[in-house]
C-alpha cells in the first residue's frame, strides 16, 4: 500500500528517467509542469484520486513519447514527422533498465535466520559436534571438532551480511567457539585434581596433581572470564550488525 506522496514521487522519478533523451530546456519545463499538476492532485486528494490522475496521464514512457513527438513538431506545420523509432525504443526501455540497475546496486544481506544459526554454530557447533562424535567413539572427538569449525566458518565467510573485518573477528574469537575457553580455563586457573596414589614408600597417600602450566588464581580467573566472554561479545556484535543492515535495507524496500 503506497501513500499518495509515494505514488507521485515514484511516478516523477520514472518520468525523469524516461525523459532523459529530451532537450534539457524542454525536459525541465515538462517536469516542472507535471510536478505542479501532480501537486494540485495531491492537495485535492485521496489515494484513489491520485491513482486516477496518474492513470489519466498514462505511463511515464508514454508521456516521454508524446513529448518527443511534440518537440519534433513546429507549430504551423500541418503533419508532424513520425517519431524517430530509435529514440522511441530507447525511451520505452529507459525505465525497466533503470529499475534493473537499482536492483543490482541494492545492497543485499543474508537472512536473519541464517545469520543467527551462523553465530550459534560458531560458538557451540564445534563443542556440540565434538561431544556427539565422542559419544560414538572417543577417537572421533577431534573429527567432530574439526567438522564443527569447518561448517561454522564456511557459513560465516559465505554470508553476505558481514564485512571482511567482521568475519575476521568471528573467525579469530575463538576458533572452536566455547571449546577454547573450556580447554584453556582448566589450564590457566589452578584447577588441580587430588589423586590417591596407591604406591606407599613413604610418600603421602594423597597428592595434588596439576596439569600443564597454571596461573595464580588472581590472574587466572579474570583471564578465564575474558576467554568465555569474548566469543559471546563477538557473537552479539555480529548479530547486531546484521540486524542493523537488514533494517536499513528493509527501509529502502518499502517505497
Amino acid at each position, binding site marked *: 500500500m503506497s501513500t499518495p506522496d509515494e505514488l507521485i514521487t515514484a511516478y516523477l522519478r520514472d518520468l525523469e528517467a524516461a525523459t532523459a533523451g529530451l532537450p534539457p530546456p524542454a525536459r525541465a519545463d515538462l517536469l516542472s509542469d*507535471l510536478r505542479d499538476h501532480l501537486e494540485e492532485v495531491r492537495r485535492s486528494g485521496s489515494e484513489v484520486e491520485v491513482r486516477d490522475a496518474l492513470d489519466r496521464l498514462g505511463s511515464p514512457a508514454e508521456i516521454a513519447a508524446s513529448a518527443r513527438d511534440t518537440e519534433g513538431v513546429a507549430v504551423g506545420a500541418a503533419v508532424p514527422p513520425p517519431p524517430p523509432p530509435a529514440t522511441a525504443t530507447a525511451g520505452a526501455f529507459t525505465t525497466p533498465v533503470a529499475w534493473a540497475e537499482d536492483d543490482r546496486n541494492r545492497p543485499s544481506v543474508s537472512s536473519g535466520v541464517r545469520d543467527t544459526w551462523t553465530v550459534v554454530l560458531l560458538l557451540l557447533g564445534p563443542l556440540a559436534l565434538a561431544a556427539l562424535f565422542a559419544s560414538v567413539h572417543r577417537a572421533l572427538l577431534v573429527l567432530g571438532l574439526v567438522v564443527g569449525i569447518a561448517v561454522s566458518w564456511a557459513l560465516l565467510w559465505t554470508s553476505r551480511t558481514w564485512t571482511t573485518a567482521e568475519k575476521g573477528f568471528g573467525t579469530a574469537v575463538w576458533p572452536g567457539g566455547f571449546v577454547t575457553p573450556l580447554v584453556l580455563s582448566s589450564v590457566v586457573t589452578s584447577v588441580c585434581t587430588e589423586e590417591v596414589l596407591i604406591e606407599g614408600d613413604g610418600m603421602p597417600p594423597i597428592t595434588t596433581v596439576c596439569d600443564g602450566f597454571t596461573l595464580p588464581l588472581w590472574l587466572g580467573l579474570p583471564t578465564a572470564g575474558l576467554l568465555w566472554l569474548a566469543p559471546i561479545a563477538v557473537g552479539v556484535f555480529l548479530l547486531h550488525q546484521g540486524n542493523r543492515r537488514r533494517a536499513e535495507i528493509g527501509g529502502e524496500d518499502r517505497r
Partner: protein
Amino acid sequence: MEPDVARERTLTQLRRGVLPHAVLAALARDERYGFELVRLLTEDHGFSVGEGTIYPLLSRLRRDGLVTTTWRESDAGPPRRYYRLTTDGEHALAAFRIEWTAFRDAVDGLLFPDADRQAPT
C-alpha cells in the same frame, strides 16, 4: 481489417498534426485547466488525446510563448493552473486559420473535383 487500420492511422496523424492549433483555438475564448481542455477536445471535438499528450504539448506552447498560465482558485477544490493564449498565440492562431483554409481548399479541390467548391465544410 487492414484498410480500417490504415484509415484510422491516417486520421490519427491528421488530428495529431492539427492538435497544437486545436489547443490554441480551444484556449482562444476561455482560459482552461489541463483536464478541462482534454475533456473539451475529446468529448466535443473528436480528438482522442489524453492528459499524457496534453501536458507535454502545453509545456511546449508555453515555452514558445504562445500560451501562458495563471494559478487560480477553481469553483471547487484546490487552486489550479489555468492556461490562456498570449498575443503571440493569437497571432499564431490567426495565421494558422489562413493556412488551414488554403490547405483545406487545396485538399477539397483534389478530393471533390466535380463539386465546384461546394464541398462540405
